[in-house]
């Protein structure tokens, strides 16, 4: 899976992109966040308040229940502030 981070999430995680193999126990976004939080203290800190984080799967807005698979591009970011 390709995982992208934007804005302050990118700064907290310390990278804009990481590629991981989908762990068997990860079925949806919520599972993925749980897995990532265990991968480093930076991730743990970045995902501390999941309610303030938005997610997109394959460039479409998704939610924490959205099912994901190996080939997905998943992006985490704070609420958008364009315009």
């Amino acid at each position: 899976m390709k995982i992208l981070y934007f804005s302050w999430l990118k700064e907290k995680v310390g990278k804009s992109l990481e590629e991981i193999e989908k762990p068997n126990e990860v079925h949806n976004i919520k599972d993925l966040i749980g897995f990532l939080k265990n991968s480093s203290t930076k991730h743990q800190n970045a995902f501390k308040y999941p309610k303030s984080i938005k997610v997109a799967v394959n460039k479409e807005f998704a939610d924490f229940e959205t099912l994901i698979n190996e080939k997905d591009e998943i992006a985490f970011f704070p609420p958008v502030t364009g315009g």
Partner: protein
Amino acid sequence: MVRVIVRVQKENFILQNEIDNLKSICKEIPGALSSFVGYVRDFSNGKKISTLTIEHYPGMTEKMLTDISKNASQKWPLLGTLIIHRFGTLNVNDQIVLAASASIHRKAAFEATEYMMDYLKTSAPFWKSERVNKDNVWVEAKLDDELAKDRWK
């Protein structure tokens, strides 16, 4: 078939050229053309800012702006729409965004442009950070923008 123009770019834009371009792609003469330009302000929450940096999610941004434009075209009888949004580092007073709608009807043009801006604010993956003194501060999303969008439902 409504024509839709969407561009995400570092470069500045010239309002007149873009409006002329939008007008030229309409399949009939629009009697009404509404447009909106957003600029970089010099103050944010009382703090003087020096520059504004805009990050975005390439690919998703264009997709969302196109979806927003098409949704507007389904809600109102439009002849064409235009959205240009810049990214990168901008100076105070610089143009950030242009949204415009062309229609036979004045009201449709006004509402569609406002709708596109409201949705852009809450659905297009852009993130702003302001340079205040020596710090870059991420701009926080405003509840007002979320509410502005909701009234179109």
